[in-house]
């Protein structure tokens, strides 16, 4: 990759840092958002210069479709519905990371026929898990906020046990994915488990706590992007992803404090029941 592209990525990373910093200050917030948008544009253009020009047609077609959908809903949505819209956008970001990870896995195993090394394999699996959880978790948060699913915590007996079993199964299948890379069935199972876990961790949480959950899932989508950066050996993905991952955790804690809740309390909200009476 050329030095100019790396420098462009560095500039984009700096703009993301400034963007997040200014977004926390009332006076500068709007400028901060603009700066980070410029950073994103720079990162996109820099990436395009490294890619095959023959494939630009489908790239621009996809970006046109995605951009139109994003812009339409961002303009149309009612002010009161913005948090649920953010949840949905966030879910799409997580799903995109999952898609990139899967694409890379299939490209290496099915098209190139090369063996994926340990670091890459772990990164792909992490991206699938975090991206998948972000997607379905965000969709459930969106459904709960807009009332399509009851805002009440949905709990059932054995929920803890089921989550534990799913996690263990995921780890087992992850090992199989690494050992038998050519078999697409294992990574497909991983995707399915990740999507299921996302649903299971958000349904027991009550509607009033959804903003905190969305903030946490926002942090997750950053981590998913970061894992994707490890797959593609790409600095700007790692910087932007880990910035969002880390600042998202802090913001989640600040939001919890503002609501007089602890993060553990929110995450276990449906299970604990002790606080839900009040």
């Amino acid at each position, binding site marked *: 990759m050329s030095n100019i592209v790396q420098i462009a990525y560095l500039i984009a990373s700096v703009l993301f840092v400034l963007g997040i910093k200014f977004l926390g200050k009332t006076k500068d917030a709007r400028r901060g958002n603009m700066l980070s948008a410029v950073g*994103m544009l720079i990162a996109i253009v820099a990436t395009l210069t490294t890619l095959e020009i023959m494939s630009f047609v489908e790239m621009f077609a996809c970006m046109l479709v995605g951009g139109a959908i994003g812009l339409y809903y961002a303009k149309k949505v009612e002010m009161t519905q913005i948090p649920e819209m953010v949840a949905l956008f966030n879910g799409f970001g997580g799903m995109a990371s999952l898609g990139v990870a899967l694409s890379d896995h299939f490209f290496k195993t099915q098209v190139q026929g090369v063996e994926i090394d340990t670091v890459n394999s772990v990164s792909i699996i992490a991206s699938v898990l975090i991206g998948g959880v972000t997607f379905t978790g965000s969709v459930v948060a969106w459904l709960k906020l807009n009332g399509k699913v009851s805002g009440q915590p949905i709990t059932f007996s054995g929920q803890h046990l089921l989550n534990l079993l799913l996690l263990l199964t995921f780890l087992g299948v992850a090992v199989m994915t690494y050992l038998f890379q050519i078999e697409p069935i294992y990574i497909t199972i991983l995707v399915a488990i990740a999507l299921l876990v996302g649903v299971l961790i958000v349904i027991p949480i009550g509607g009033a706590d959804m903003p905190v959950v969305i903030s946490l899932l926002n942090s997750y989508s950053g981590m998913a992007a970061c894992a994707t950066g490890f797959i593609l050996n790409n600095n700007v993905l790692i910087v932007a992803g880990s910035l969002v991952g880390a600042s998202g955790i802090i913001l989640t804690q600040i939001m919890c404090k503002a609501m007089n809740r602890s993060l553990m309390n929110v995450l276990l909200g449906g299970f604990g029941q002790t606080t839900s009476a009040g």
Partner: protein
Amino acid sequence: MNAEALIILIYVLVLASFLGFELISKVPPTLHTPLMSGSNAISGITIVGALIATSEMGFTTLSKWLGMFALILATINVVGGYAVTDRMLKMFKKK
């Protein structure tokens, strides 16, 4: 990936994470949602990965289609995220 490249990536990860932790301290409650939404748009940086995945030639492979699928979703995240954040912040100014 060789060990040297991995260490540099981990270096970047650790330092950027620390920066992320330190970056946010006192945020006024009215800015919680815009900040969340704005940083959500940044996590759409995965669009870079989606572009790379889409750049594969020919339409016969699953990985190409997955790349295009990811690119559409990532663009929704980026464009929608920035637009909705700007809309929220514009409203604050008017008050």
